[in-house]
Structure formats: structure tokens, C-alpha cells
């Protein structure tokens, strides 16, 4: 789960990581009020679950409350990578002397937490990683002992020469690791980690992603969830045991299993059309799940045909066929439906489906071609 910068700031603060003063606003007036409370130059930053907001114009430096109001009103109407900005963070601007990078992630390869630091922090960090990978220092952490102070120091010595800054950075690296573990983060990142002209260190952009599987033990963080409209639909589907992501094609797909669902989408593309969605109905194809899945698909006006691709597996195909027939009887669907059912009792399933208007096919390739053909140009 993604959380916003202002929420990550709250978590950082609770672990003693220094974050510039700031507050979140949902209207330009609020932004102006906050700017009045805070003193000196400020930054107004879009709070949106998308990267590259800076380059998209979602971050503005302002000097007066009026300017803050103005910037907020511009940013709050913004669309960044398809996401509407509903909140801005108004925060103190820093007198930046130096920008470093500090990031924690769970490394799939070593199967352990990985910390990365670079003296070349800032918005171009990915380019640094690509062009001059030697500037990124990585360290794999033994999860049984955690990060030791001397390891944090060794990393901090890669960032600064001044022992005072080394001590401050090592302290932040240790605290960030603590936070990373404590909140079950899959990512915790400070970029840039700033040194100001007066020699102080600050977190200028806090980023934390939380492991979805661990949310059950973090109710306080679960409450931070701020879903976009698209995500709300996905969450609603999830609550019904469905995994759904809307796309922009015209072939609706209903598949059991995520891998097979992706392969089905790929095939539709391969044969010249575009899938309307990713939709995994999971292990058992109960009539209720089929009803819910179809309800989602028919609400998408782009959909011109529906392709069921079900691999029987443990469940017998005739049971699945009966489930689909039962579900369809409850709905009034104009769209053509192509069904591919493979596995145990496949023939019986075909017989059941033959008594309906549904088009049955024997392979996913055939099903993909058929549903594209029916959908028309």
C-alpha cells in the first residue's frame, strides 16, 4: 500500500527522524492559512500516488501566504499521470547545500533487507544508478541482528567527510531501518536527504510503501489508505474475492488465476485487439463470483465482447459450467460471451453450455480469436 509523503512524515517523526515543519491542505485557503502559521519560504507539494510530480509541476516554491494559496490552487486542480491531486503538503523550504539518497527495500535476490545510500541524491538518482552505479553503495542486512551502528557509520562515511555529519547520517540510517522493520515497509526512502547551509540534516521527501500482507497488524497505517477512484474499484472487487484492474481495450476477460489472466490478455493483444481488463476470479468459480465479475465488466462501456478463460483444475468443468449458466440467468447481458473451459469433464461442460447462447471453444487461442472477431472493429 502506498501512503502519502505527509503520512510518511508522521511515521518518520515518531521514529525521531527530522522532518521540516508542515501541514496538509485540501483547499487553497487552507494552504494560505498554514503558510501564515509557518514562517519564511515554503514549498507546496502535490500529495498523489505517482512518481515524477516535480517534473509534472506538482511542487512549487513560494515566499508568501498569497503565493502559497495561488500555488495550491494550481496544484489542486492538477492531473498527474492520470491521478487528480486532492491534497497538498505545505512545508518549510530548506536552504539546501547537499542532497544525498538513503533507501531501504527487501531484496528478492538475497532475500534480506537491503540499504542503499548515495552522495548523489535528488530527482536524478535513477540516472545516477544507471550511468554511474559505483556511486550507489549497497549493504545487505542480516535480518536476525538488524543493522548495527558501525554498519550505519560505514555507510555514512560514504556520504560525508565531516564526522558530525557522519554521526547524524548514521543515526538517521539506523532510525530509518527501525521504522522500515516496525511498520512492515516494503520500501522506505529519503530522497533527498538534505544538509542545509547551517549544517543541519533534514528529510526532504519521505516515501514509505507498506507490505499489503502485513496490514492486518498495522491498523493505524491501514487507516492512512487514500485510494484513487480506480483503486476503489479494485478494492471493491477484492472484497468480493476478485482481482480486477481496468484497462482500455474492448475485450472483457474473466479468468481463473493471475498468470493465466495475464497470458490471456497478452494473447488478445497478440491477435490484434486490446484487453478491457485484468480479472482473476480465483480458485473456485462460484455463481456469485461470476455474477460479481460480470457486473464489473458490463459497467465498462468499452467492452464489446466477454471472454471466459477457465482452466478446470481441481473443480470439475461441468460444475463450473453450471455455475456460469446460473449466474448468467440472473443477469441480462447483451454482450456476446465466448467460453473456454478445459480440464476434468470438459465434454459434459460443453454439452451444458450448448443449451445456451454462449459460444464455446476448446483452446484459449481459439477463444481469443473468436472474442476479437465478435467484438468487431
Amino acid at each position, binding site marked *: 500500500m*502506498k501512503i502519502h509523503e505527509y503520512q510518511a512524515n508522521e511515521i518518520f517523526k515518531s521514529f525521531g527522524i527530522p522532518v521540516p515543519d508542515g501541514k496538509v491542505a485540501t483547499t487553497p485557503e487552507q494552504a494560505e492559512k498554514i503558510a501564515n502559521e509557518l514562517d519564511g519560504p515554503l514549498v507546496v507539494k502535490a500529495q498523489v500516488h505517482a*512518481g515524477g510530480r516535480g517534473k509534472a509541476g506538482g511542487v512549487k516554491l513560494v515566499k508568501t501566504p498569497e503565493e502559497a494559496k495561488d500555488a495550491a490552487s494550481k496544484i489542486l486542480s492538477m492531473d498527474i499521470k492520470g491521478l487528480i491531486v486532492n491534497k497538498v503538503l505545505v512545508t518549510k523550504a530548506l536552504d539546501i547545500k547537499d542532497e544525498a*539518497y538513503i*533507501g*531501504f*527495500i*527487501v*531484496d*528478492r*535476490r538475497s*532475500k*534480506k*533487507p537491503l540499504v*542503499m545510500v548515495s552522495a548523489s541524491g535528488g530527482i536524478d*538518482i*535513477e540516472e545516477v*544508478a544507471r550511468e554511474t*552505479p559505483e556511486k550507489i553503495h*549497497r549493504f545487505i542486512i542480516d*535480518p*536476525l541482528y538488524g543493522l548495527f551502528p558501525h554498519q550505519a557509520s560505514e555507510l555514512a562515511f560514504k556520504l560525508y567527510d565531516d564526522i558530525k555529519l557522519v554521526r547524524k547520517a548514521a543515526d538517521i540510517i539506523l532510525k530509518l531501518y527501525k521504522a522500515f*522493520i516496525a511498520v*512492515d515497509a*516494503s*520500501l522506505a*526512502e529519503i*530522497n533527498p536527504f538534505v544538509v542545509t547551509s547551517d549544517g543541519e540534516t533534514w528529510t526532504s521527501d519521505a516515501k514509505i*510503501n507498506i*507490505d499489503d*500482507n*502485513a496490514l*492486518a497488524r498495522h491498523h493505524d497505517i491501514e487507516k492512512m489508505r487514500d485510494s484513487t477512484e480506480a483503486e476503489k474499484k479494485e478494492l471493491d472487487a477484492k472484497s468480493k474475492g476478485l482481482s480486477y*484492474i481496468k*484497462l482500455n481495450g474492448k475485450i472483457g476477460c474473466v*479468468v*481463473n*488465476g*493471475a*498468470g*493465466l489472466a*495475464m*497470458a490471456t490478455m*497478452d*494473447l*488478445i*493483444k*497478440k491477435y490484434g485487439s*486490446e*484487453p478491457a481488463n*485484468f480479472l482473476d476470479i480465483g480458485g473456485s468459480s462460484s455463481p456469485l463470483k461470476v455474477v460479481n465479475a460480470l457486473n464489473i465488466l458490463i459497467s465498462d462501456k468499452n467492452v464489446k465482447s466477454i471472454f471466459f478463460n477457465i*482452466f*478446470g*483444475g*481441481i473443480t470439475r468443468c461441468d460444475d463450473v459450467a453450471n455455475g456460469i449458466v446460473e449466474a448468467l440467468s440472473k443477469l441480462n447481458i447483451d454482450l456476446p460471451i465466448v467460453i473456454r473451459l*478445459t*480440464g*476434468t469433464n470438459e465434454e459434459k461442460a460443453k454439452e451444458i453450455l450448448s443449451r445456451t447462447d454462449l459460444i464455446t471453444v476448446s*483452446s*484459449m*487461442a481459439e477463444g481469443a480469436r473468436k472474442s476479437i472477431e465478435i467484438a468487431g472493429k
Partner: protein
Amino acid sequence: MSILIDESTKVLVQGITGRDGSFHTKKMLEYGTQIVSGVTPGKGGHKIEGVPVFDTVKEAVEKTGADTSILFVPAKFAVDALYEACDAGIKLIIAISEGIPVLDMVRIVAFLNDRGTSLIGPNSPGIISPGKSKVGILPGQIFKQGSIGVISRSGTLTYEVVHHITNAGLGESTCMGIGGDPIIGLKFIDCLELFKKDKETEGVVLVGEIGGTDEEESAAYIKERFTKPVVAFIAGLTAPPGKRMGHAGAIASRGTGTAAEKIRAFESAGIPVAGEPEDIVKLLKSV
């Protein structure tokens, strides 16, 4: 031969009295799997499908000699169930359970590694050596004993692939779903190492998907150190760009884990990649 499991594998079912546990115990017994015991704390002394149930894995192992365990335990209890199996001396664990937090898995794999226990999963459909033993929820009837090893990160997509292999008359030596979570036990390379030594296996099908860099790593491994023919299939070319893991994700993996990148990695390692599941068999016969 086959890898990891065969007719001599003695299986213990953790969570045997649950809905899925009891259902699949029946299915596995029907397939011929040697299930020697089950565990559900507080249900010691009962029987499920004729299989004796114990309170602890330790007792079950002592009394029935189980060497392999399959987990149907809900996520909340799965973490301890994994430790318990390893503690009791189980040498191979197949975790069907899904939803285990990543940082818990980090500690678990360290524990199992130290103690020499192998793990398939979590969030795995299991493993089957056709005609010998099935430890999982895979539909037994679509498999046929043969010479192709299958390793996959998916469930039903694996069945789709196997369906074609079986229909083509090739059959499978061993087929396993390693699970799609970020931190898992055996990975592609670990399974390839085993298939390398297995005389019955003449070729391997590797079914990957977007995310992570396991496919890229195994492509490099196959090029350098694997001698049997391999065919790959990657799902997710049309998948939405997905939930990016900040900068750190891209920096750490030195790549973005897209299907296109994975396909490129295989092709540049000389490994044919099937355009759709049906093509796998043609490619297998041609290499």
C-alpha cells in the same frame, strides 16, 4: 527419477482438519501420495480420511516418519507452522498458504537455510512427480509421467502449459509452482540445479511473469551452466506498468522487471520464448 518428491516421499499435512486441508488430503490420497500423518493442535488422536492426526509436528514426525510437509494453515498461523515443520526435522515444506508478510518470510528463509530445509512457496500450488506423488492442489488428471520438467511462478497458467505438454505426448518428470511472492523458498535457479542432475528430465519449461529479476538471473545461469534444452514463457506483456517500488525498486534490481525485459534476457541467452502457451510444445520439439 524425478526431483524433490517421488513414491517414497512421506507426507505430513499441516492444517489437515481445515476445509482445504481435508479436501486436498483426499485428492492427494486418491492420486497415490503417501500421506502418513496430519497435524492440528488439539485434534491429536483423530483421523481424517484414515490419516492419523497429531497435536504437534514433532510427535507426527516421531511416530510416522514424515519427511515432507504441506501447509494449508491460514496466513496468521502459517509463520509458526513453517518454523514448527523445520524444527521437527522436516526436509521439504510446500506452503500453499498465502498472505504471509514479507519480513516474516525474510526471517523464515534464513531459519530454513541454516537448518537445511527446502521450501516451495508460499502461495504455491504445490509440486507433482506424475505417477509417483502429488503434494499440492494441482489437478492430478492433467499430468502424465514423462521427460519435461516444469517450473512456474503461476497456478492455472501452469496447468495450461502442462495441458499442452501432456496432450503432445511428452509428459512431465516433475512440475512445480514456486509461488509469486517477493520472498520465496526455492527459486528458478535452485530448481534448475535439481533438474540438471535428474536423468529422467530431458528438457525444462520455465513459466515466468512480470516482477522481480528471477527470470533474468535464470537466463544468465542457463546460458552458462545448464546443458538441457529450456523453453520459456513469460506472462504479462500487456500488464499495466504496475505498482512501482519508488526509486529503490529500480535501483536495487537494476531493471524494472517488465515482461519485455525478461523475454529479451532469455532470447539473448539463446533460450527460445514461446509467443503463446500452445507454441511451447513446438519449441520443445525443435530444440
